[in-house]
């Protein structure tokens, strides 16, 4: 269907601020009398604090106050505390010191005496599962994800460990499990079974903008300037951290320097400057340093896993049995293991699948969802095994993926529910011409260099529903879309808002996206995470526009009679179909709506709206024609977000270094809302995928719990010179039936497919040598080529 605005590039309203330096991130706001606070973070992996002496600090000139864990509300034991007296990882914030300058605050922190009573700690889940092994927490060593979430103690038996050799993952009793189909009979009917142990390292989100937060209280109202991916979705959680009602919270988050899942929800440390500001009665800026961002900035959990795949001779995957020991950090973390199994269920449509997992707590930075949590690691671990099967079954690597690909009748997850749409095969087809050309060069040598080619697939659910849309036409004729969407860098706040303008046939120059500040009366929206915004928020904008259109026509009938069917709109005017010369400008309609009042200008509203939307509507009441509605459109089944990556690399077997010669990323995201936005997400996701596949990993010294890679230099996110300078992107461009404009989300699968493609290509270049580990770093390649053992054990996670 041809659209005026959808599918066309536009100038996002926030890009001008980004390129001129005028954009204000959390650390750029300045308030009268603002002071600074710095954190004292734990230097030991696990301890109970028996004594804190900050008398010397308080006596220092310029120090305004110290905030300790006793002065802040305690969270449930699974949630990251605001401050703590029992640090659970090196870097856990213990207290905060406020001073007129940051240097004074740091001097004060240096003078504080802390008595740590050292407690056992661990950075290796298997060590904690071994009978008598150290527990990361004093109240248990495993996270139970069944509601309500809690910490339990779970140990395996020595027999579990001994019954397998050292290179295989022992499979003791799992604490999380589900399955479908008859797993045993499916394996019996398999012609080829692969049983592989693998490790995917954890890595930090490494957002460019550290999560600095500034807070101030005025007349019992708390103003928070923060860095989060989402806007409206943050309000309830943030208010509960502060222990206040949403009405007394103002959240300003116009810009966010990247979140990648670590800032989709509010995080407890945002409350520190708020409580400090309340205590010392001055605005407080808590600047987070890069090292502190590593500590509290969350990370992807590591997997020590084992997967058994059953294939028939024609390449069809009939059975999958996944066991994951998840290195879960010290607090709740995220159920990556569950998402990993769900990805296998969608991408390969096995007839039977079993998921078993044990999320074990470790004394390392807390974990949260990181771009494709579970889905992207499992892609990097399982896709190379698909290549292995293809080789043994003598089937083309794209063909074997097509045989197992998900289509519109695909089944998903433990309940094998339906999908709204899935065009995996179409994505594979988009890359076929490139694949057929590059696969001829697989293994081609050029001195010590050898070519490797790969194809990788990524998946992530790509849409939710049930949120509210809110738009407003003001007497000046302008259309205001009050979007509750955050600004994490995808421009989804504007691309989804253009749907409302499309429905109302607005000229985009007369539209204003209202966002970034809770005082601007924004609609209740989902978190900008889980690749959902394009699907979810287009529905919000659509239902709000439809409500406005109806009200416009109803007002027209009041002035020109008839019923709403007799009217249509064009050129920002409503007119009688029978007599197009009879037209009323939307600006006039808006003025009439104010005069009529009631539901037209926001005094009455549907009661199924979320409280946040309700307060926004009442805030806007009487200022124009209000279009507001909950998204009750039909939705049944998983919105499947799929992506496929095709890659060619040249690997130097003498140095272990490779150069990515060519990359194509294809996304099944339904109708493309914002072409350049799609291409920068696909190539940006690919860069992060290459990081996951070959550069980034957590390193902790198991003897003292120290992190080996605090900053950018040691954590090694890819730079300009590590990725190709030209990235090719494409989209399947087949509409999703359950979205008004056919759009689906796509942010996360595009990273998983690139990571998988690169891992496959490296193994291909080495003639089918499978590391069963990510990231694959030069030292591993050099060891493999020279026939040496790897320096880490096959099950080691958090290792150099």
């Amino acid at each position: 269907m041809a659209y005026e605005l959808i599918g066309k590039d536009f100038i996002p309203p926030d890009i001008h601020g980004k390129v001129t330096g005028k954009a204000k991130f959390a650390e750029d706001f300045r308030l009268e009398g603002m002071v600074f606070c710095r954190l004292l973070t734990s230097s030991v992996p696990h301890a109970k604090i028996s004594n804190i002496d900050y008398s010397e600090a308080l006596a220092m000139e310029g120090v305004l106050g110290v905030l300790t864990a006793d002065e802040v509300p305690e969270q449930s034991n699974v949630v990251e505390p605001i401050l703590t007296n029992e640090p659970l990882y090196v870097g856990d914030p213990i207290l905060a010191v406020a001073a007129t300058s940051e240097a004074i605050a740091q001097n004060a922190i240096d003078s504080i005496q802390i008595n740590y009573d050292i407690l056992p700690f661990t950075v290796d889940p298997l060590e904690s599962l071994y009978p008598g092994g150290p527990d990361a927490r004093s109240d248990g060593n495993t996270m139970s994800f069944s509601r309500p979430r809690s910490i339990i103690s779970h140990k395996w038996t020595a027999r579990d460990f001994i019954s397998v050799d050292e290179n295989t993952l022992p499979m003791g009793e799992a604490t999380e499990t589900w399955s479908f189909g008859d797993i045993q009979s499916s394996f019996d009917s398999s012609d080829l079974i692969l049983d592989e142990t693998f490790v995917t390292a954890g890595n930090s989100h490494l957002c460019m903008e550290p999560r600095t937060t500034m807070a101030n209280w005025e007349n019992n109202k708390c103003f928070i300037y923060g860095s989060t991916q989402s806007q409206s979705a943050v309000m309830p959680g943030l208010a509960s951290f502060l222990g206040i009602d949403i009405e007394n919270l103002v959240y300003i988050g116009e810009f966010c320097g990247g979140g990648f899942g670590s800032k989709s929800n509010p995080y407890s440390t945002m409350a520190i400057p708020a409580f400090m500001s309340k205590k010392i009665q001055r605005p407080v800026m808590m600047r987070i340093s890069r090292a502190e961002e590593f500590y509290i900035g969350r990370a992807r959990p590591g997997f020590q896993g084992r997967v058994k795949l059953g294939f028939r001779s024609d390449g069809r995957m009939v059975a999958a049995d996944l066991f994951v020991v998840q290195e879960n950090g010290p607090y709740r973390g995220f159920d990556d293991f569950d998402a990993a199994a769900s990805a296998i269920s969608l991408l390969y449509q096995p007839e039977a699948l079993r998921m078993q997992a044990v999320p074990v707590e470790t004394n390392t930075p807390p974990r949260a969802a990181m771009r494709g949590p579970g889905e992207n690691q499992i892609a990097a671990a399982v896709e190379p095994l698909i290549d292995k099967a293809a080789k043994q079954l003598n089937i083309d690597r794209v063909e074997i993926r097509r045989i197992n690909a998900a289509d519109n009748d695909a089944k998903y997850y433990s309940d094998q529910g339906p999908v709204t749409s899935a065009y995996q095969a179409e994505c594979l087809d988009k890359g076929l011409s490139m694949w057929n050309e590059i696969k001829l060069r697989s293994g081609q040598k050029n001195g010590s260099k050898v070519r490797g080619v790969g194809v990788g697939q990524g998946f992530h659910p790509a849409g939710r529903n049930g949120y509210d849309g809110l738009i407003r036409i003001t007497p000046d004729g302008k259309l205001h879309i009050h979007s509750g969407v955050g600004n994490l860098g995808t421009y989804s706040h504007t691309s989804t808002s253009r749907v409302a303008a499309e429905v109302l046939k607005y000229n985009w120059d007369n539209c204003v996206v209202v966002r970034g500040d809770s005082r601007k009366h924004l609609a209740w929206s989902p978190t900008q995470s889980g690749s959902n915004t394009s699907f979810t928020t287009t529905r919000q904008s659509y239902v709000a526009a439809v409500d406005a259109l109806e009200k416009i026509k109803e007002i027209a009938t009041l002035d020109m009679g008839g019923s709403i069917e007799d009217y249509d709109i064009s050129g920002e005017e409503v007119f009688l179909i029978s007599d197009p010369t009879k037209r009323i400008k939307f600006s006039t309609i808006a003025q009439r709506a104010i005069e009529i009042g009631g539901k037209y200008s926001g005094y009455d509203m549907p009661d199924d709206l979320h409280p946040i939307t309700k307060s926004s509507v009442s805030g806007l009441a009487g200022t124009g024609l209000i279009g507001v509605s909950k998204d009750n459109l039909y939705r049944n089944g998983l919105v499947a977000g799929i992506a496929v990556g095709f890659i060619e690399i040249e690997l130097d077997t003498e140095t272990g270094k490779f150069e990515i010669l060519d990359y194509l990323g294809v996304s099944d995201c339904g109708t493309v809302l914002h072409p350049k936005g799609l291409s920068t997400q696909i190539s940006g996701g690919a860069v992060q995928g290459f990081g996951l596949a070959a550069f980034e990993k957590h390193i902790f010294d198991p003897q003292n719990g120290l992190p080996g890679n605090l900053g950018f230099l040691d954590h090694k996110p890819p730079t300009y010179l590590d990725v190709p300078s030209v990235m090719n992107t494409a989209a399947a461009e087949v509409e999703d039936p359950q979205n008004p404009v056919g759009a689906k989300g796509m942010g996360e699968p595009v990273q998983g497919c690139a990571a998988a493609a690169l891992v496959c290509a490296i193994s291909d270049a080495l003639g089918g040598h499978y590391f069963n580990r990510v990231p694959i770093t030069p030292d591993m390649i050099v060891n493999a080529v020279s026939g040496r053992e790897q320096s880490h054990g096959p099950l080691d996670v958090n290792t150099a």
Partner: protein
Amino acid sequence: MFEKNKILEKNRSSRRAFIKGVIASGTAVSSSGYIFGSLAGCSPDQSVLGSVERLVSLNVNGQTRRVDVLPNETLAMTLRYKLGLTGTKLGCDRGECGACTLLVDGVPNYSCSTLTHSVRDKQVTSIEGLQGPNGELHPVQQAMIDELGPQCGFCTPGQIMSAVALLESNPNPSRDEARQAMSGNLCRCGAYDHYLNSVMKAAERS
């Protein structure tokens, strides 16, 4: 496990200091001649160089700004907290990301690793200094908008400053030359190829 138990750590380092003290006191008497000797050596006529003056005038974006600068103050901190120019961002404060890149006499520097006192008589150009008198965007800024260079925008000021310096010295670079010149700017969103598209577009236009 080192800097952790302050009490214990205190006695270990104090133990080392204790030993040094005992030995030093033993040798103090004998070496006093040496100490007095060296002081005498510092001839009175040599101008006793003092630490830098605090109040300085900086040339930032073509304006002369009088500002009180601490000796240990970095240029990024001066711009952000004293001159209100918050366009220069602090991504790591260790010279490992490039978000703080700005131009000193046209040369890209990490302003987080440059002392303000070392640029007193130099031309500093930050992201805020690129626009024309009434707001016209620099070709690189315009190209970044047209090609959708940035994603989250936090590293964009640094990227743009490197691009501006590149085009100054090499008006039509090859894509690989641009890639080399921009390589000191990290982008976690991975917008590298869009940034390069913007640089090439800006080069085309000017």
